[in-house]
């Protein structure tokens, strides 16, 4: 289950997309947003989850991120439970961008 309000099971992480460039981000232990899932804060602590939720709402109001939501995380692997969320972490398994010389790409 993934949702804006925490309703999930087990360890949770909070994710969103940045407003300006649309890229995936996860909330870190410093309560910042990072493009690296390896820096994501993953916790089962209800107090912390509550705080994450309010930071998410705040960031949305501040127009930093769009539509934050909680995702379930597998305890053993540390990866998201849902297949789709695994993909957001990994990025595309194939992207034609890899064929284009980096110096002519903007990103």
């Amino acid at each position, binding site marked *: 289950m993934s949702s804006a309000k925490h309703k999930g099971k087990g360890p949770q992480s909070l994710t969103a*997309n940045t*407003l*300006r*460039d*649309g*890229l*995936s981000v996860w909330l870190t232990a410093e309560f910042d947003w990072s493009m690296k899932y390896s820096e994501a804060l993953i916790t089962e602590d209800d107090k912390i989850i509550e705080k994450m939720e309010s930071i998410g709402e705040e960031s*949305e*109001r*501040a*127009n930093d991120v*769009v*539509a934050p939501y909680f995702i379930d995380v597998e305890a053993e692997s540390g990866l998201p*439970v*849902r*297949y*789709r969320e*695994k*993909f*957001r972490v990994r*990025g*595309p*398994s*194939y*992207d*034609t*961008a890899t*064929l*284009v*010389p980096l110096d*002519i*790409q*903007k*990103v």
Partner: protein
Amino acid sequence: MYRYDEFDADMVSSRVEQFKAQVERRLSGALSEAEFRPLRLMNGLYLQLHAYMLRVAVPYGTLNSTQMRKLAELADKYDRGYGHITTRQNVQFNWPELTDVPDMLKELASVEMHAIQTSGNCIRNVTSDPYAGAIADEIEDPRPTCEILRQWSTLHPEFAFLPRKFKIAVIASKKDRALIRAHDIGLEIIENDAGDIGYRVYVGGGLGRTPVIGQVLRDFLPRVELLPYLEATLRIYNRYGRRDNKYKARIKILVQETGIEDFRKQVEAEYAELVPLDIAVSPEEVERITQYFSPPDYKDLEDVEVKSDDPAFARWLKHNVLENKTPGYSIVNISLKPKDRAPGDVTSEQMRIAADLADEFSFSEIRTTHQQNLVLPYVETQELENIYKKLVGAKMSEGNIGLISDIICCPGMDFCSLATARSIPVSQAIAERFWDPERQAVIGEMQIKISGCINACGHHHVGHIGILGLEKAGVEFYQVKIGGDPSENTALGQITGPGFSQEELIDGIERMVDHYIEIREDEERFIDTVRRAGVETFKEVLYVDA
């Protein structure tokens, strides 16, 4: 090609300014995401799995070289150096930033392009035969009709908030190269017994989670009645289409629930109210628009035959080149299906090469196809070898049009936020398995189509072999349909049974292909053999291991 008039140009540039202001207000926080989302969607801007995605309209798949170069420039300046040709002949960019999109739209407007109505519950970009204006079997060029529809449907106030999206396709040949019966409305330009030209109107086709083949709404609609009749049809849909359930909101469901007879009666009754035909397009206006699609300045040439000992060139000639209706000219398909790429992806460098080729050899015109390839419609036959050599250098010379590696494939889980499984790696694995060109030629015409979820953007319902990517407990699996047909003999494939892993899937497809080659008679294509021998025998070989 059609040139925007002042009205179009003003409308598009005011939309760009409007969207620029909306983005500014969004960034400043004056607009919330809930308020902004519908506004960005009206301008073709989606938020996908990893980033924003901008969908640019290519009306009826026709581009000039300047527009193609602009797309290449946008790809480099604002994206990651490539674009994607969709099954609706549009172009998508996978990585734009919100802050750049107003500039992108401004640059598009400078070459008469935009992203309006490429999303949302409105009448979407009208699609057509990619060989329009060039192919001998057409009654007339279908694009003037498309252009009339574009003008009518763009910002039509009554149809901006339909129950759901609305897609129209137009052809003018018996051969259907635009899948008109999988559209909300499909129009076939026909000639009646009296020698008058008009339209056969199909309604209620669609793919998605409930695939339906369109039915005839009107057998012959006189040309002048086109807009009033469609207006009446859209009104009925707007009034009675279901708004309570997104999955039942397309016109296909309304037609199914009402029954085609009653639906037709409702449309005709509404139509009777519309007379006199105050929105009908006058013959003079039709003539004015048609002028823009006059044939290019063809030279007076004789037909020539091009042959080659180079097997790759010979293959390309056989599969990718068709006769243009003018002697001495050909239609060239440029394949965007090399073995290891995503079907329909084209790099900025390739776009520029295609634009250069169009300038040098095809009166500066290019087409995008629903099969996710490109077309140069007006090429001198004696230049084919020159063009081929340049395509080889650009890695666009595959001679595989209509063959097993010419796969339609949606972005799937690699990019799409609605996906249930990946589709790109599956198409790559199929292309890899069957890459041997001799073998592809032996197999002959084969349409494999792959979607990464039930929305069916990859047309899997009408693939000779259709593949649907699904997921269960974190594992992708693929369901197979056989016997679909995207041609004028439109048919939906039958589901064969439980799904497969990607590896099992490729083996299963190979067994079906081998089985076909074993049992085919005479000149039968795969789809013909499936029709004659039945789906069951193919199912048996597909599930032989299971």
